[in-house]
């Protein structure tokens, strides 16, 4: 299940915020917020996508660098919310 989540999120990030990027360059540990890939509006869009796609609700304080900085972090958060 986690792989499915990861691929969905990864595809969304690549399509929306990294058009043309080689998918192999976006690894599980690539810093997304601290690495300048997701700015504040992009982060909001990602949160809205996650909420809609996975039927979860993120608390306001979870939409930040602590919780969403890498694919690993995001998958962990979504998995916790879904279980």
């Amino acid at each position, binding site marked *: 299940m986690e792989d499915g989540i990861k691929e969905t999120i990864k595809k969304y990030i690549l399509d929306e915020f990294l058009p043309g990027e080689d998918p192999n360059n976006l690894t599980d540990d690539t810093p997304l917020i601290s690495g300048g*890939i997701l700015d504040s*509006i992009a982060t909001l869009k990602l949160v809205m996508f996650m909420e809609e796609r996975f039927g979860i609700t993120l608390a306001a304080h979870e939409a*930040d660098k602590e919780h969403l900085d890498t694919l690993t972090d995001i998958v962990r958060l979504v998995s916790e919310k879904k279980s």
Partner: protein
Amino acid sequence: MSDMRALHKSFVEAAARFPTNIAVVEPGEGSISYQSLDELSSRVCEYLHGLGVGPGERVGLYLRKSIDTVAAIYGTLKSGAAYVPVDSTAPPARNAYIMHNCGVKVLITEARFEDKLKQEIDNLGGPIPHLLILDGTGGGHPLTNALTAKGLSSVTTSIPVLSPRHDDLAYILYTSGSTGKPKGVMLTHENAVSFVDWCSEVFQPHFTDRFSSHAPFHFDLSILDIHVSLKHGATLVLVGEDIGKDPVRLAKLVSDERISIWYSAPSILSLLAQFGNLAVYDYSALRHVLFAGEVFPVKHLRTLTQLLPIPRYFNLYGPTETNVCNFHEVPLPVPDDRTTPYPIGKVCSHLAGKVIDESGVEITTGQEGELCISGRGVMEGYWSLPEQTAHGFLTDADGTRWYKTGDIVVEAEDRIFIYRGRRDRMVKRRGYRVELGEIEAGLYKHPLIKEVAVVAAPDEEAGVKINAFLSGKEAKRLSLIEIKRFCSENLPLYMIPDRFTWYDALPKTSTDKIDYQRLKEAN
């Protein structure tokens, strides 16, 4: 000049008049009364006086926005020195450059920045200023502790408010510079006080008001937030960097804190209107919504005013060099079919304005030209940049100095001005001034980048999109992830381009310069 007042004089008077009023609220960290803020800032002043700081000196503030920072601002002003606030989220190298550039005598900062900052100042050839290191920020406690550790546990004498001289600076605000280095805009006490007094006249603040402090302190919007609220015995509510960007949490905070006077760039108001879920909260305290820093897309302004129809809305306009110089109250409702942005409005009463053509001659109603501003609010100049300062002004035969805003306007009826665009390569993004040349200079630092050209294009949703065109020294191009990470380490976040496009070589003009025109068309 006989009526010369120090910027902090009104705060000291308000503290005597409203000692128990809450001066500053820092959500989650606490609050501070006028009396306590007055005392804490006096201790900062004593500390600075002990180091020989006085008029003609500068004190750097490299701190997260907090009660500690507000106390440090007033402590610096009381000492007679000018404060130099920097963006605590910007790369340390940029902040070190600013501190070194204007030669701060004392730098108040947080322990987490200390090592990197010292190293960067050292790289610039030093010297390291006196450092007051705070163990973090929050509620004024780390500042109190740091002063106590320096043996300043109470204020022994009352500090007289000295009348500043004509050219004494109150603060220096660094803005994006076209050469790739930020430049310091020098503002005197007279500049600041004339602006603050104008705000008092137009917005009629009351001691029961609760002001937002959304803009960071290195941004000129903070002058209104801090110095207008604390002049009138009102309360200033600090909005942290994280919450400030998050419409969901911010919408709740504005309601919970019963903000009555809001001031920010339009971009966050657009986000609040779209994502803030405003209908579920109580905003009955809100009486003024002020915005400045960029054009407010009418679509989002309409949504906002439909959701919050009670407050009055003011479009404020002005560069850091003059602070607000024009203003326009938006008449409600915003018509359904309106798409044209609202005017920047009339020139403020403490200033004068005129429009000039390319040869510097004043032009008459109905034609486009560059807006120039003169009067008590206009800056002294740029810190140690006499040529850029001279270039920024036009001097009349009678000696009046007019600051050339670089903004193209047209005068409609009744001295109301309409903004048309920029004359140069500066754009506004999320309320920040961005010199495209500074982004280029930042990208050129990458060892594999050979050529860079950055152009801006208008965008209905975001206001402006920034596109970078690049060519590399090697056949292998940097990936988007690599280039974005490099930007995040070398540029403030608001300067990171939206799009990167690689060329084998950038198109050139016949004189072998980068052909910006063709790149713009390629956009």
